[in-house]
């Protein structure tokens, strides 16, 4: 899990360059940049939450090993054959591409959702870091469990506020230092994840994952094989199906660089998730922890690998929360072009810090990530239709550019209707959020075609 690229208008890092124009050939980058970037971005602090949450939800070893294998493959294929294809043919950011279809005003609305969801995601990362920072303070800070949604005490709040403030301060200073730190940390962090898994297997006296990862006796699993396939496919759906990674992959020389996403999926979302899952397996078996209640990542990692693990949790949270705060700031700034980047970042950092003191965002991460994808991914279907299908089904490509409109209601309805139905099902009927992004994405694309044929501009201008 991680954050997404940038908003338009501010040239400060790779994704911001050529914000309003196609990337020129001289600015294209080689394959290694993308392999490194994906490997680093998907080994984040939240991976320490996701693996244990699978265990808490009663996933079996078969579900994890083969479900993640298939789900991550689907995610890689989505990046390769949808996002990378459009990115390397158009070479525009998501925002620029959207503006041509939806008009400027709808991009502003998208930025609002994007910015707020970024803040909550960064808040979850700060929460994970706080569980590590709190370890040296012993029992004076009560660590949140999976069932906690509210702050666990005054010291917990102070810890989160301090970390959030520090991360906001660093984000205010720009993106470069944190990006560099994240890049340097990536290989080491991945090995710490692996180390956690190995140590736990040693302590449990078995290397047989099928024997170690089993649902608790008498429990009814909340997630199975297809749930894990869906989660691993759609946890980053805002980036692939949602086309947010157009902003990154437009710098790729070839569409085949989309395969680089496999580095992130199979190192971060496979090996790291399974290793993190083993941490909770150990605490359930040897320390008697109730799997439904779980344990915070900080103490589990501390117990497994000591100070190196705590450092890893803090750095993994920091290097992913920081760019997320920065990018949320850019999203807010994109809504109000007269706002300074510093003001946008301060607002984003403030919202993120307040969100971090509520463990709900981290402890309900499987649900939150599903909702995040359900809201943001469907808009990508509009871009896919516009790029691959518009001519074939007889609707205009880039209609906002053709008509000069700042607001295309067709896109708004195509986006809001399926998302509204999806969120209604999730909130009122408890439908698992991680199953929703794909049906909402397909419905959005179908609605966009149907509504465009009825009320959209003609394919040939008079």
């Amino acid at each position: 899990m991680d954050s997404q690229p940038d908003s338009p208008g501010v040239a400060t890092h790779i994704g911001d360059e050529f914000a309003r124009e196609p990337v020129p050939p001289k600015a294209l980058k080689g394959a290694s940049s993308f392999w490194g970037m994906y490997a680093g971005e998907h080994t984040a602090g939240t991976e320490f939450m996701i693996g244990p949450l699978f265990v808490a939800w009663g996933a079996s070893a078969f579900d994890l090993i083969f479900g993640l294998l298939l789900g991550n493959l689907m995610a890689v294929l989505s990046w390769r054959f949808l996002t990378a294809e459009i990115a390397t043919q158009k070479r525009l950011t998501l925002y620029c591409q959207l503006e041509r279809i939806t008009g400027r005003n709808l991009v502003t609305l998208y930025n609002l959702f994007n910015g707020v969801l970024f803040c909550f995601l960064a808040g979850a990362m700060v929460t994970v870091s706080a569980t590590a920072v709190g370890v040296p303070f012993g029992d004076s800070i009560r660590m949140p469990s999976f069932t906690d949604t509210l702050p666990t005490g005054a010291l917990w709040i102070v810890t989160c506020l301090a970390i959030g403030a520090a991360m906001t301060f660093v984000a205010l200073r720009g993106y470069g230092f944190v990006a560099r730190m994240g890049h340097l940390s990536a290989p080491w962090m991945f090995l710490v994840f692996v180390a956690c898994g190995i140590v736990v297997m040693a302590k449990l006296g078995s290397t047989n994952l099928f024997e170690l990862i089993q649902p608790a006796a008498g429990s009814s699993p909340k997630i199975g094989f297809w749930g894990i396939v869906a989660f691993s496919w759609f946890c980053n759906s805002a980036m692939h199906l949602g086309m947010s990674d157009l902003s990154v992959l437009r710098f790729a020389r070839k569409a085949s660089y989309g395969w680089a996403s496999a580095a992130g999926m199979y190192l971060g979302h496979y090996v790291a998730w399974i290793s993190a899952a083993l941490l909770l397996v150990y605490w359930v078996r040897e320390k008697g922890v109730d799997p439904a209640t779980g344990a915070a990542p900080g103490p589990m990692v501390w117990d497994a690998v000591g100070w190196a693990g705590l450092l890893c949790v803090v750095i993994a949270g920091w290097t992913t929360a920081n760019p997320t705060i920065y990018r949320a700031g850019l999203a807010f700034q994109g809504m109000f072009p007269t706002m300074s980047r510093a003001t946008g970042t301060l607002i984003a950092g403030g919202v993120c810090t307040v969100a971090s003191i509520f463990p709900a965002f981290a402890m309900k991460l499987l649900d939150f990530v599903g909702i995040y994808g359900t809201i943001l991914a469907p808009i990508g279907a509009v871009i896919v239709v516009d790029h691959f299908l518009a001519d074939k089904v007889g609707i205009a490509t880039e209609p906002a550019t053709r008509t000069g409109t700042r607001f295309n209601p067709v896109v708004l309805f195509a986006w809001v209707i399926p998302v509204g139905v999806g969120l209604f099902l999730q909130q009122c009927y408890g439908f698992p959020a991680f199953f929703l992004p794909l049906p909402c994405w397909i419905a959005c694309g179908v609605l966009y075609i149907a509504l465009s044929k009825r009320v959209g501009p003609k394919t040939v201008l008079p």
Partner: protein
Amino acid sequence: MTHVAKVLGLLALAGTVVPPLLFLTRSIAEGPMKLIMLISALVWFTTAPLWMKGGQ
């Protein structure tokens, strides 16, 4: 200098994952394993910036 930093960096990565493997085979105790991992972390973050490019 860069060459030395690179070698130390690679040793630090090895020092992050080899001790847990030795712990798995009961060749090292938990305390020394954790200590080597911490030292390796410090060595990695000292040496990697000297030779590892990218990320800006």
